[in-house]
């Protein structure tokens, strides 16, 4: 695995980075600016993380601020809670999606609730970074899309970047947030590359229209954004002009942007990798329908992972929403009315 240490990126200067490098830069910049920011997790120190997102941080900031922890996810998140209570801003790395599950009790019963339980007296500014999703040929337990669990848990912000620029900007915003953020990093976009210009930290919670369109609107996020953009390209040949919305934040949800984008076309498809049943697409379809019912020419459809455990590497392409499956759904949007 190659290094993720980025060319030193001065704020305001444009640099070409991978998503991994952008995340690494965000961590470094945040640690430079704020001495209370610290990184912790399994293998984040000497190794720089299995995806190298924390590469070079231990060297620059020392082992105390880039802490290799014992192998125990509840212990990691639980001790981050205590650190945050004492005024630090821990950025926790949980190594893979499925290895966040041991930390669920800490997450659901403490991290998500502490501000509320204490009427605002113990806010927990913790960022929980989790590489998630499939498409990289990982063996079982290495490709789960678990965002629905987080999004259903009040008290958590749930963010997921899909572009290199957002990798930087949204991680900075997450670390700056005074509330806990589950920051889901699409594994298969780690090596995507782009020019970015790190700017001031934006507030979290806004969706972005990545592509304007008039026929129908694709609503998506994270690893499925590039697939949707590709589908929109292909669709052009078939006569459809598809808008593509990148949600970026599942909690809070940007009803304003989404509602406007769907009303503009009257047709929508939600696309994500996570299991469909009870997945984020269900919420999105339901709330879009509540808000846009009389603008809709067809029900909001969903293209998602199947309702099965994530498949083995050699079969994953059949599970993941691909261009064809998205276009099939678009075709089912009752055009002949």
């Amino acid at each position, binding site marked *: 695995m190659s290094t993720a240490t980025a060319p030193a990126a001065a704020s305001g200067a444009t640099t070409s980075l991978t998503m991994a490098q952008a995340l690494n830069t965000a961590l470094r910049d945040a640690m430079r600016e704020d001495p209370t920011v610290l990184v912790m997790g399994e293998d984040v120190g000497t190794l720089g993380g299995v995806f190298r997102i924390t590469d070079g941080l231990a060297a620059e900031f020392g082992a105390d601020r880039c802490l290799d922890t014992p192998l125990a996810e509840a*212990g990691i998140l639980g001790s981050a*809670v*205590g650190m945050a209570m004492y005024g630090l801003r821990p950025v926790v790395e949980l190594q893979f999606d499925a290895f966040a599950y041991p930390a669920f*009790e800490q997450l659901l019963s*403490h991290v998500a609730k502490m501000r509320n339980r204490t009427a605002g007296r*113990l806010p927990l500014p913790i960022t929980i970074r989790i590489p998630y999703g499939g498409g990289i040929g990982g063996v079982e337990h290495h490709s789960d899309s678990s965002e629905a669990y987080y999004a259903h848990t009040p008290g958590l912000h749930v963010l997921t970047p899909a572009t290199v620029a957002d990798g930087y900007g949204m991680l900075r915003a997450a670390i700056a947030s005074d509330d806990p953020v589950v920051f889901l990093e699409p594994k298969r976009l780690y090596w995507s590359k782009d020019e970015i210009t790190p700017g001031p930290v934006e507030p979290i919670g806004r969706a972005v229209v990545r592509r304007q369109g008039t026929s129908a609107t694709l609503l998506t996020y994270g690893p499925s954004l590039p697939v949707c953009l590709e589908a929109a390209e292909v669709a052009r040949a078939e006569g459809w002009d598809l808008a593509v919305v990148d949600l970026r934040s599942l909690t*809070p*949800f940007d*009803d304003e942007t989404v509602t406007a984008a769907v009303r503009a076309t009257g047709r929508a498809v939600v696309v994500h990798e996570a299991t469909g049943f009870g997945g984020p697409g269900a919420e999105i379809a339901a709330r879009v329908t509540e808000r846009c019912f009389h603008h809709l020419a067809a029900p909001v459809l969903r293209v998602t992972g199947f309702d099965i455990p994530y498949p083995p590497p050699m079969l994953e392409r059949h599970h993941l929403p691909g261009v064809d499956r998205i276009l099939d759904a678009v075709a089912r949007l009752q055009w002949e009315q």
Partner: protein
Amino acid sequence: MTLLDQPAGPSASVWPPNAHGPRRDPAPLLPDPEPFRLLDTPAADKLDPELLRDLYRRLVLGRRYNQQATTLTKQGRLAVYPASTGQEACQVAAALVLREDDWLFPSYRDTLAVVSRGVRPVEALTLLRGNAHHGWDPKAHRTAPLSTPLATQAPHAVGLAHAARLRGDDVVALALVGDGGTSEGDFHEALNFAGVLGAPVVFLVQNNGYAISVPLSKQSAAPTLAHKAVGYGISGRLVDGNDAAAMHTVLTEAVEHARSGRGPVLVEAVTYRLEAHTNADDATRYRTPDEVDAWQERDPLAVLERHLRAHDLIDDAGVAAAAEAAEELAAEMRAEFHSEPELDPLSLFTHVYAEPTPQLREQADLLAAELAAEADAR
């Protein structure tokens, strides 16, 4: 062995240089075979009489607190109350040995320890009253909220203690866990983190013999719970939890041990829950009156009072004064719980996030409209 005798360096090894070592000598980590006691032993003569009298007054207060809280449940003023009756020596000592800037991490049964830290009873009992999830200002009192999910507060204590050290403060965190709580994964992970980080944290396990109905024999096969310490490379101590002087001594040493950078300590206090699990529990289903009677004999309050009287360290006036202070506390509690708490339904939506999400604003508006309609209808 006292806590001040610390493990020596690594032992010699035939091993190649590697990442496995250094190996430590386990002997200094192991607890004494029998719980440490002071009262009714010759060593008790050296104890500071004023400390003993102070402990006595606090135990009397604590007992009265437990009684009054239980009464409040009968009057419907508390939703539920898990009494620490019989465990007052543990509760009081845990609070007393901490400096003001140290942190306490209580479990759901430990409201007396919280009150002993200076939190007003009505705030300490907010969770159990049912008007809010939590009462006091945790930062002002350096006392975390009561933790209901068992043992989950233990890693918090480790993290806080470690953070304090990183920030240059010589603060100690003390986490309270029950015997049942030691079975949870979080207990293990916390002790392991503490050992590895050398964090200034003390874990006090109040082994009161039961986790609701489950006796210790079904909870653990360990020689003692204090023996768990060795598996984390930390010091274990076993102490008579009904001997207030022993509790105070051992916890003082443990806190000092942690504060001075010599690492965490696990203290097991052997004690007994004289009341049922909570007012909703029926303890006769799982334990005999004989067992309870035998432990009444070792009631920490009675044990200390006997000692004080036997050594002429307290007179009837002293006993009466302690009782009077306790009655004052009880009266204060009755007064504070007399009135219904003020409630604002719309507070449901504040403090979920620093800023309410658009979704929460909509929901708050819905509730506000409902409340307005209700008010109109009246």
